[in-house]
């Protein structure tokens, strides 16, 4: 297959798109923002017979709230997320993470659904979706199923999405009034870089104190998929989060992450940095809490 021979269809509804995905005569792939798909096409890794262009599917670009939680359409761009007042107040971690994805151009193009489908262990928005207990809705012509984010990824670049399925909704829980989040990222430069390690936290804290009464911590880029730091999470509840306590949790984080060495950093460096980002992140989070 040559790039010049590839076809493209642009379905005008989700239903039409699912029909196209079901047709297995020719190989096909979805394309939305293109920040990943086109790069892979240029590398000759993704060479479908047909591109199914869903960029214009307005019905999958929304941010709204109902009784079941906050709903984000898979075609919502990072810029949409950063600008959303609803998410700023009820899912602050996700807006912080979206702000650190690439730079202006990538935030304007890249979509949340694309970030999930690409399934990079370094994807910046994914740890935020972990701490917000995201459920990914997958639709095919025959069924709609909801997959908790912890079961969604199988490995680097791999998800449970079947060939005839597409992401049709992303549901997260709204943060509570006493809940506050933070996103920390380490990359070679500020803009446009892929995370060497990233860290996300969302903690519930008892009013007027530094006592955490429930919290979730997630690391990116330190394992084949995003991981929750469960041991660190259980430590959060033991004592008020003072300097000493935060340092102790950071030491446990060093042991809890399981990174590999690759082109971007060595495993040991990643462990040190996971620990450092947790420490810095929790300091900053508590500082914001006190000033709130």
């Amino acid at each position: 297959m040559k790039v010049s021979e590839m076809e493209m269809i642009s379905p005008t509804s989700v239903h039409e798109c699912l029909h196209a995905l079901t047709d297995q005569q020719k190989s096909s792939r979805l394309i939305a923002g293109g920040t990943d798909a086109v790069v892979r096409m240029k590398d000759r890794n993704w060479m479908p017979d047909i591109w199914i262009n869903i960029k214009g599917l307005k019905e999958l670009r929304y941010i709204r709230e109902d009784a079941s939680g906050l709903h984000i359409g898979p075609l919502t761009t990072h810029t949409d997320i950063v600008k959303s007042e609803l998410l700023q107040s009820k899912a602050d971690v996700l807006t912080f993470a979206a702000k650190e994805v690439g730079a202006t151009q990538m935030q304007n193009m890249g979509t949340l659904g694309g970030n999930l489908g690409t399934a990079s262990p370094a994807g910046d928005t994914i740890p935020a979706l972990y701490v917000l207990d995201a459920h990914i809705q997958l639709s095919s012509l025959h069924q709609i199923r909801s997959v908790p984010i912890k079961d969604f990824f199988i490995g680097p670049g791999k998800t449970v999405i079947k060939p005839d399925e597409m992401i049709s909704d992303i549901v997260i829980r709204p943060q509570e009034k006493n809940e506050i989040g933070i996103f920390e990222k380490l990359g070679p430069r500020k803009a446009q870089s892929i995370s060497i390690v990233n860290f996300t936290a969302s903690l519930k804290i008892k009013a007027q104190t530094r006592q955490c009464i429930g919290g979730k911590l997630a690391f990116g880029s330190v394992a084949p998929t995003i991981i929750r730091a469960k041991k660190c999470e259980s430590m959060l509840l033991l004592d008020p989060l003072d300097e000493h306590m935060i340092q102790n949790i950071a030491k446990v984080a060093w042991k809890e992450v399981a990174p590999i060495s690759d082109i971007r950093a060595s495993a040991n460096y990643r462990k040190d940095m996971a620990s450092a980002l947790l420490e810095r992140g929790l300091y900053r989070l508590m500082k914001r809490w006190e000033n709130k």
Partner: protein
Amino acid sequence: MKNIRFHVNGKESNVQCPPAKTLLDVLREDLELIGSKECCGKGECGSCSVMIGDEVICSCLVLAGQIENETIITVEGVGLRENMDIVQEAFINEGATQCGYCTPGIIVAAKSFLNSIEHVPTTDEVKTALGGNLCRCTGYQKIIKAVQTAAKIQNPFYAVK
């Protein structure tokens, strides 16, 4: 081959091309708008920046089949020699260009950014807005200064933050 209709710099364009050809190649090869440049080809450098609607994007990562009915502005649409934009004049006056390869992309990104704000941006704001545009020769001081100068000229009553 596909017939693709869209608007570029205020004019309607009809192009016959493979749908998986990049927008950048369509602009340069089919429409002879050679201001936008290819450099990294993977969305890291910003040399190919153009606006779709009012948002700046990398035209090297958009496929021709995706731009049907879209409105696109390239650096030629921001301004040419005879009708130069304030941003372009500011870049000349501040000496914010050296080899010039990254300049068209930076002009488009700066224009889109200035359209979206109503004050003279701080250095940090300019750095964030232009974070996706690399320049390998001048250093960024003069570029940042030029964007701030353009904002001041654009509206002398803008608040300096």
